[in-house]
């Protein structure tokens, strides 16, 4: 057969019969000649001339069409972050409404039905629409920059993922505004959420919101895994990968393994509700606990899916602000991986009160406690880095200190609730509410606020205001303690979670009043953060490429980065490339400039492997998301929607994946 080697036009273009050996070879020779004319970056094409040409090739079309069609990971990541922060604000408003209701005993401010919608919406919004997507958004923005590539893998899948997420969020909140918001709690236990006890469409909407966000999260996870494994800069071996990238690799793999569980669980729920299956129906040989097993098989890893990116943020901040790499890099990596594995072995600790065999409990107690070992080691490594370096306490670093002080409390109460005899008392009380807010806010939101301050100049080109940042930090930190510390106390006094009111005289008045005051302080601080972010967009100090003196590749490009990220693909020679070089950035050259192309490297050693054409902007991911979205929403009303809806979905997906023809007539090099 034809001798096809490297190049852009392999195969036998335009020749239907490949057996005609001579003609094929002639064609290949002609193509090889043409190949020499392709424009590539190199010592002769660099600097501004290269920037202008790359910009012309990579820039998306302007206007609303271009906006919808974009496949730039930075735009998609930014949208993810902003959308998730809006959902954070909405979820936060719900929290404040609940705190107002609970400020006084026997309060009649908000009725039972409305309150039940509030906490269901709060939990669902925070878990599915804020925490996971915001981590993904940050990662999608920063990881290609951090690993030195021009875009993520599968950029159209990335765009599709965002639209699916957006539609899921709009569905849930649209329903809530129409007063048909779900009210069965964010973990929607059957049979309460089943057809008999939750008639109407509320739970169906919840379940389909789950489907939307699962599809989005799974797509983003595949994008991240492939980007991290195949798109790293030459020389960035696995051992040299930044800790945040490691964290996101573990998280993406965890998403891939855990999210199918909740998709399956909610799929079974919705089929129980709509077409009369009996998965959870005890009267017909089903089992209500099947839901809990499936849900928590997802739900527990979910907590680490939220927490591990935050540990990556902490590593990034600690490294830059202590002026040295994190102590014991390998230990931190192993800690991340073992947390990821252990997270799948402890879902049953959410079910200690369900009366499962006692022998199994001891195993889950041990497993749940053992997950604190890798976390404890990570904490030590950060503290050792601070001790061994020269920490600068700028705003991101303050959030790290706040994180350690707060998160460790949550970790330790986590050890408490891992013990069966303690859990049977503390489970489903405000003690547990305090515990997981210490873990999720202290452990994930504090580092998130820190990292947003840290990467804000990279994303916008300007610094956030330092003074406002510091005031905001102290308000968040102190307000948080005021809001959530008393909850340990009210939980010990027997206050169950998810009650819309409580009687006077149980000693619950004071802790609840304190919590309400604290919650409003936190709310105010979040407003301050947003104000700071908006004002700094226009008034902030110009940042320059590397305002913090940081060591990783995202700081090697201008702020904000150009649409193609790197003019030449960088080469990495150490863990902290910008600290160890000779002041110049080592690069490889030879990627096409006249067509979108990026470099793939091998998985472990990151040696150059392939030149990969990058997908052009396209409306099809958006159209596909709409088609799939219509199927999901319509299936709530009729199962036939799935059959009919598959046709437009198939059309959209086919159009999306239909490959582009590589440019065969390269423009001549302009000197």
């Amino acid at each position, binding site marked *: 057969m034809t001798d096809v080697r490297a190049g852009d036009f392999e195969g036998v273009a335009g020749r239907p019969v490949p057996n005609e050996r001579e003609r094929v070879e002639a064609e290949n020779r002609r193509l090889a000649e043409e190949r020499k004319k392709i424009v590539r970056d190199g010592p002769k094409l660099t600097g501004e001339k290269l920037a202008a040409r790359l910009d012309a090739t990579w820039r998306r079309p302007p206007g609303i069409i271009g906006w919808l069609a974009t496949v730039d990971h930075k735009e998609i990541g930014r949208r993810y972050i902003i959308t998730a922060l809006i959902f954070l604000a909405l979820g936060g408003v719900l929290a404040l409404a609940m705190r107002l209701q609970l400020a006084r005993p026997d309060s009649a401010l908000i009725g*039972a*039905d409305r309150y*039940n919608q509030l906490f269901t919406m709060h939990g669902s919004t925070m878990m599915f629409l804020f925490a996971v997507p915001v981590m993904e958004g940050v990662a999608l923005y920063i990881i290609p920059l951090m690993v030195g590539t021009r875009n993520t893998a599968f950029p159209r899948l990335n765009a599709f993922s965002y639209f699916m997420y957006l539609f899921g969020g709009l569905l849930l909140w649209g329903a809530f505004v129409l007063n048909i918001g779900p009210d069965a*709690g964010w973990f929607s*236990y059957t049979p*309460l959420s089943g057809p*008999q*006890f939750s008639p109407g469409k509320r739970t169906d909407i919840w379940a389909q919101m789950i489907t939307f966000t699962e599809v989005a999260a799974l797509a983003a996870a595949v994008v991240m895994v492939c980007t991290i494994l195949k798109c790293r800069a030459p020389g960035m071996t696995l051992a040299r990968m930044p800790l945040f990238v490691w964290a996101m690799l573990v998280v993406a793999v965890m998403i891939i393994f855990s999210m199918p569980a909740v998709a399956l669980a909610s799929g079974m729920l919705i089929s129980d509700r709509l077409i009369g299956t009996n998965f959870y129906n*005890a*009267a017909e040989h089903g*089992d*209500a*606990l099947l839901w809990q097993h499936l849900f928590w098989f997802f739900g527990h890893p979910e907590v680490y899916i939220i927490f591990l990116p935050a540990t990556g943020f902490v590593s990034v901040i600690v490294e830059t602000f202590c*002026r*040295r*790499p994190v*102590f*014991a890099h390998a230990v931190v990596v192993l800690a991340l991986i073992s947390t990821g594995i252990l997270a799948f072995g402890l879902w049953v600790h959410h079910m200690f*009160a*369900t*009366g499962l065999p*006692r022998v199994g409990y*001891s195993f889950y*107690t*041990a497993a749940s*406690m053992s997950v*604190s*070992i890798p976390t*404890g*080691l990570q*904490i*030590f490594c950060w*503290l*050792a880095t*601070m*001790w*061994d*370096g020269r920490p600068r306490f700028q705003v991101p670093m303050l959030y790290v200190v706040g994180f350690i002080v707060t998160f*460790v*409390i949550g970790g*330790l*109460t986590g*050890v*408490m609730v891992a*013990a069966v*005899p*303690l859990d*049977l*008392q503390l*489970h489903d009380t405000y003690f547990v509410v305090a515990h997981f807010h210490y873990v999720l806010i202290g452990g994930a939101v504090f580092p998130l606020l820190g990292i947003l301050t840290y990467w804000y100049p990279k994303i916008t080109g300007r610094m956030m205001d330092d003074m406002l940042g510091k005031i905001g930090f102290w308000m968040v930190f102190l307000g948080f303690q005021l809001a959530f510390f008393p909850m340990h*106390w009210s939980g010990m*006094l*027997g206050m*169950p979670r998810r*009650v819309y009111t409580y009687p006077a005289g*149980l*000693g619950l*008045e004071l802790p609840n009043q304190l919590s309400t005051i604290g919650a409003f302080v936190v709310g105010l601080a979040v407003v301050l953060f947003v104000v700071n972010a908006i004002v700094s967009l226009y008034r902030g100090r110009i940042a320059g490429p590397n305002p913090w003196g940081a060591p990783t590749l995202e700081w090697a490009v201008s702020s904000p980065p150009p649409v193609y990220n790197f003019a030449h693909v960088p080469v990495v020679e150490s*863990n902290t490339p910008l*600290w160890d070089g000779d002041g110049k950035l080592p690069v490889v050259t030879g990627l096409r400039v006249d067509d979108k192309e990026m470099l793939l490297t091998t998985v472990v050693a990151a040696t150059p492997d392939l030149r990969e054409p990058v997908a052009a902007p396209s409306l099809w991911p958006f159209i596909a998301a709409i088609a799939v979205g219509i199927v999901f929403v319509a299936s709530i009303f009729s199962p036939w929607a799935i059959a009919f809806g598959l046709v437009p979905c198939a059309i959209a997906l086919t159009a999306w994946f239909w490959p582009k023809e590589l440019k065969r007539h390269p423009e001549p090099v302009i000197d």
Partner: protein
Amino acid sequence: MSFRRQGRAAVLALLLGACSYQRYQSDFGAAATQGRQFLTLFWIFLGVCLFMYALVIAFLVAGILRRRRATDANVVETGRHHQSHPLMRTTLIGWAALIGVGLTALAIASFFADRSMAEAATGEKLSVTVTGNQWWWDIRYNSDDASKTLRTANELHLPLGVPVRIQLASNDVIHSFWVPSLAGKQDLIPGRETGITIVPKKTGIFRGQCAEYCGTQHAHMALVVVVESYADFIKWWDHQLQPAPAPANPLTLAGYNYVTSGPCSACHNIGGTPASGQVAPDLTHLASRKSLAAGALPMGKGNLYGWVADPQSLKPGNKMPTIGLEPQQLHAVVAYLETLK
């Protein structure tokens, strides 16, 4: 109400752990073997956790306060950022070992507490079945002698020092049986048999509450538990076995007639009368209970009026409809219900 008094009480309770009014519905109650063992284990865990927390904070403070000269830190400015202090590696291993030892100790303590709870829960002398309903508790005292079995609702009486087996079942969704002062919680799951054994160690009145979200009125699904001496308990049981007293005057008779022939009897049972509904709380000795509507209201004439007249405004969404009684009917019904001592 006085904010200061409340504050003082809370602070006192914080310090002592178990202040008097905290016994009513509180993890500090320790009014049964299980609750006591919980509390012991809790203090052990708290101690170990505080110790570990203090270590972390000490290290953090040391890291913050340690001012190093620009020349001897292992940072990028000195070019020594790839080196680390030799002490750190040893400390890391020590820290890992400490966590391992601490967790092992706690796991063992937890295991033994669990086992001793299980041991204390043997030799049950009394069997009670508690069935969860949206949003009230159905209670049956089981006995081999059929004439001794007893059905009541929302108020559980337990004899002091006697191990009681409480069988748990649910008629609708998942609930959780939880009386914090006595013991940890246990779920009631439709289609599954669960149970809990309690050995009450202190007399008194305790409040329990459904701990698994079960729908609209989850917040008002409470349970009163009365722990009393064995003699008092037997007296109570014998009294509860009696049928409801016959109406003694025209007003209560009118109430009797309405309750036993009107819509009430479709759902409620009153022993010794034609009212024999089974889907709502048994009313035979309603007025002897301490609360109304599963702990939503204290028992009393005023609350009876309010509840019978308009249950939907006092506990919105509950399964008892607002019937719209005429004033005379209301007077009669309440007067009759008050006789159900």
